[in-house]
């Protein structure tokens, strides 16, 4: 009798019945099959068998038996509160018993989670953006998608004529608000002027948006010309009180404004950013002659409040029609689009009204956060599984006593979640520590509010739970799936090590990542150092630049020259090395070329130790009509002029004929990443904006006090604005300093996580092999030999990770860094060697600290306990 019932049907049946007792039913099925197999064909018998299996599966009999089925004498199928309490208790006991590993895990996860908390709190801030406006759901802003040829740009702003057309023609719009963000200036005060900025806004601004008024009538305030509304804190800043209605403020070069209302300070979570609102009618018409044009976008914003329940479709159709009418005959095509109020802050548009947090930035940040978080989760998984041997007896016993898979799974997940919640506390502490630093790194730092609110707190906890699930899923599944007999016989160790390949690979990946961070730290560091010590070709030490403000240049020069601390002084329109203005230059016979230019007086070259290689300096007495210019070597090369016949050549610059009287040696007039190009010095007293003072640097405080005193004689209401030139230059490398700091910090996190993971693994190995070590010692092995033996595997891992890290670093360097145009520092062999040495030193310390301890243990202590 070769025929047997269909295996698949049997399997299906067994699986469906699960723990229910169906032995007799299986017997009945088989008996019937063999009976049929004798009387009919095998195929037919099998067909009947399948039929019967299905009839049983859907029958009441099975349902009833399944309901009564119990995995063991003490087991129960429903999860009760007391059960969860028990899981918690067991979890806490376990965590306490293996304190060392718990500590490692908590540290690792806390570090890993801290960056993600930053991301979450940032998201929490951005997601509540502009949610306090009562009409928020019905407010839209109109953005302009401008395309000319292949160039396309999305503007947050739109032509202001559109607003006028809208309020005239489109009746479904309840309100149309015009905002112009160009209001700004200095409020004239007795002692010193205070800068202020804000918007020109229509009178309905206050009714459409919900910015509560403190005092005064905002409606009148924003309808009358030359009338202004201040925020609470601005009023305090200017007057020291909020009782300012009816007072006037005078803005430099702009006239006076009357204060008609004061607004309460508004919350930080909005894309509006203003200190004052000025009525739209006060917008000076001459400020921008073509402000009424359809092609003017800058600084003009339109907000539309639709009627309640009004759909955006109508407005969109209207805008489509309008685009066709307006841009029909122009090469520039513009699409007007609507953006809901709460999405403004995350949209990627040009010329935005306030701060913006583009979604793309969040993605990059998210990837970085994941790169830090995942290794931490992986460490937990790794250590947990490695310790399966220790816990296999417990699992085996639980299973024997009737614990089901799902219950074991729950128990282990509970343990992980508890760990993650403890880690969350640690992560929060870290988060609070790094928050300030992080905020100061962001461009929009002042507006970013990262305080923990109820919403972010809930998000944090949800995040911790998800992290727990992520880290604990694999170990929990693994433990729940253990065979109880193998587990009780301690045979699982072999199975645990079958996953060694993946674990090794992941450890290698972690260290490779850390290696990359170390390398980037080295490269950024060198880049920064190079820039700080960069030789521009002129003297930058001991020079103080003084902003002339409104004071006459000659007066400053005369007054400052009297000071004993001042060695020499010169005037210029800017500082070389920071930026230079550009102009078009025409030779008499040839086409125009673009040059960079700087206006200087005759002392400038000497003052900054710039070298003339031909010709002479500008004449001492500068006249208002320009006649001469000094060019750099590059200018001659590019214009194919031989140095000897360069002098006296005449060029047309800004419609003025200028004659070359000198040639200066090449120097870096722009930041060092920009290559040296055509450059000219011009001599025009009206363009001077700053004085460059060479001072005696031995007494900085005395020097500045002396300069301050002379300044007071020259200007009565402006403050001296002076700074060391070198500091200004260094400040322009701020971005590198930030990168250095960021790479350093992330590197620190990544390395600590890897080290913690490695430590966990090494401790575990040392613990499990302690008997083996003792026997070896008894048989005469040396401490060094044993240390080597225990460390060997991990040293190999380190070697691999450095090898892969080098490849990864080179790949990243080739793809990312070489694409950055101003990149100077190269990845050298020395960097790689140094990085590798650092990593090896760190790894070696970690490994040997544990293995050496084990190697030193007294064999008598460890061997006697069995």
């Amino acid at each position, binding site marked *: 009798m070769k025929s047997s019932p269909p295996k698949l049907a049997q399997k299906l049946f067994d699986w469906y019945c699960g723990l229910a007792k169906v*032995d*007799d*039913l*299986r*017997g*009945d*099925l*088989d*008996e*019937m099959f*063999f*009976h049929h197999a004798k009387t009919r064909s095998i195929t037919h018998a099998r067909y009947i068998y399948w*039929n*019967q299996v*299905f*009839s*049983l*599966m*859907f*029958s*009441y*009999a*099975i349902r*009833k*038996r399944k309901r009564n089925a119990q995995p063991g004498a003490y087991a129960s199928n429903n999860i009760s509160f007391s059960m969860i309490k028990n899981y918690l208790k067991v979890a806490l006991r376990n965590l306490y018993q293996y304190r060392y590993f718990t500590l490692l895990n908590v540290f690792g996860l806390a570090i890993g989670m801290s960056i993600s908390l930053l991301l979450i709190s940032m998201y929490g801030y951005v997601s509540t953006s502009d949610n306090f406006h009562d009409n928020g759901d019905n407010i839209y802003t109109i953005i302009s998608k401008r395309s000319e040829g292949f160039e396309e740009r999305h503007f947050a702003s739109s032509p202001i004529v559109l607003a006028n057309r809208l309020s005239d023609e489109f009746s479904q719009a309840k309100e149309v608000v015009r905002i112009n963000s160009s209001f700004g200036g200095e409020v004239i005060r007795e002692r010193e002027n205070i800068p202020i900025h804000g918007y020109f806004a229509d009178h309905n601004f206050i009714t459409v948006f919900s910015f509560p008024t403190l005092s005064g009538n905002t409606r009148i305030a924003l309808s009358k010309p030359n009338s202004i509304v201040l925020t609470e804190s601005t009023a305090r800043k200017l007057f020291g009180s909020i009782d300012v209605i009816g007072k006037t403020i005078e803005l430099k070069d702009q006239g006076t404004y009357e204060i008609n209302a004061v607004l309460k300070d508004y919350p930080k979570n909005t894309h509006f950013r203003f200190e004052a609102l000025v009525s739209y009618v006060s917008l000076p018409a001459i400020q921008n002659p073509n402000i009424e044009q359809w092609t003017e976008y800058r600084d003009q914003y339109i907000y539309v409040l639709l009627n309640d329940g009004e759909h955006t479709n109508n407005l969109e159709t209207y805008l489509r029609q309008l685009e066709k009418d307006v841009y029909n005959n122009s090469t520039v095509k513009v699409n007007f689009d609507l953006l809901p109020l709460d999405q403004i802050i995350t949209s990627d548009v040009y010329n935005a009204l306030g701060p913006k947090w583009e979604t793309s930035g969040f993605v990059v940040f998210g990837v970085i956060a994941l790169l830090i978080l995942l290794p931490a989760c992986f460490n937990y998984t790794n250590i947990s599984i490695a310790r399966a041997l220790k816990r296999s007896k417990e699992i085996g016993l639980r299973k024997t006593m009737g614990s089901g898979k799902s219950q074991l799974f729950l128990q282990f997940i509970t343990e992980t979640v508890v760990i993650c919640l403890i880690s969350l506390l640690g992560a929060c502490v870290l988060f609070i520590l790094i928050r300030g630093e992080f905020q100061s790194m962001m461009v929009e730092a002042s507006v970013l509010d990262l305080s923990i609110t109820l919403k972010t707190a809930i998000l944090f906890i949800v995040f911790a739970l998800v992290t727990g699930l992520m880290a604990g899923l694999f170990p929990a599944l693994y433990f729940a799936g253990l065979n109880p007999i193998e587990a009780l016989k301690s045979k699982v160790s072999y199975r645990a090590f079958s996953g060694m390949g993946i674990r090794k690979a992941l450890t290698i990946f972690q260290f490779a990542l850390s290696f990359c961070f170390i390398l980037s730290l080295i490269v950024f560091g060198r880049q920064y150092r190079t820039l700080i010590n960069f030789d521009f070709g002129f003297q930058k030490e001991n020079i103080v630049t003084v902003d002339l403000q409104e004071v006459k240049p000659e007066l400053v020069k005369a007054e400052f020259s009297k000071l004993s601390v001042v060695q020499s002084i010169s005037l210029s329109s800017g500082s070389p090395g920071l930026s230079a203005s550009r102009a078009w230059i025409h030779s008499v016979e040839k086409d125009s070329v673009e040059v960079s230019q700087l206006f200087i007086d005759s002392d400038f070259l000497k003052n900054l130790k710039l070298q003339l290689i031909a010709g002479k300096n500008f004449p001492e007495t500068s006249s208002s009509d320009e006649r001469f210019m000094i060019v750099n070597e590059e200018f001659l090369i590019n214009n194919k002029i031989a140095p000897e016949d360069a002098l006296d050549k005449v060029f047309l610059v800004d419609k003025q004929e200028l004659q070359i009287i000198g040639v200066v040696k090449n120097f870096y007039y722009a930041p060092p990443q920009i290559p040296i190009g055509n450059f000219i010095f011009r001599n025009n007293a009206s363009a001077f904006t700053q004085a460059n003072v060479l001072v005696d640097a031995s007494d900085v405080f005395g020097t500045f006090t002396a300069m301050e005193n002379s300044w007071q004689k020259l200007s009565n209401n402006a403050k001296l604005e002076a700074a060391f030139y070198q500091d200004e230059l260094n400040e322009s490398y701020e971005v590198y300093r930030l990168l250095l700091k960021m790479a350093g910090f992330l590197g620190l996190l990544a390395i600590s996580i890897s080290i913690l993971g490695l430590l966990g693994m090494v401790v575990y190995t040392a613990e499990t092999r302690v008997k083996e070590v003792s026997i070896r010692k008894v048989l005469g092995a040396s401490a060094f030999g044993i240390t080597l033996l225990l460390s060997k595997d991990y040293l190999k891992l380190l070697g691999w990770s450095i090898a892969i890290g080098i490849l990864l670093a080179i790949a990243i360097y080739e793809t990312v860094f070489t694409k950055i145009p101003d990149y100077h520092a190269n990845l050298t062999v020395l960097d790689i060697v140094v990085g590798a040495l650092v990593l090896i030193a760190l790894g070696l310390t970690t490994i040997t600290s544990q293995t050496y301890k084990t190697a030193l243990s007294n064999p008598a202590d460890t061997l006697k306990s069995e």
Partner: protein
Amino acid sequence: MKTYLGELEELVLLTVTTLGDNAYGVSIQQELESRCGRNISIGALHSTITRLEEKGLLTSWVGGATAERGGRSKRFYDITQAGKITLTETKQLRDQLWDLSKVKLASR
């Protein structure tokens, strides 16, 4: 409380009593098929048996294993005292109804 019997339940209960010591899943099904011409699936049969057990009309025990069932044991069924009473009551009810009924069959 009076227990009502469905038609199939009554048939199964009666078949169990006719089979005596050999009443288990397959034998009951075959007996139903051969005697009553009812070809019911094993699922339907076991559902009926389960309900009869719930009503307390059937009792069961696990018997020895047999080779032809792949070494699996049989579950034997027997009628309980309550089962016998219910069957008798059902029969009496039918008899009364027959006596009162106007239907006179030709064979009578």
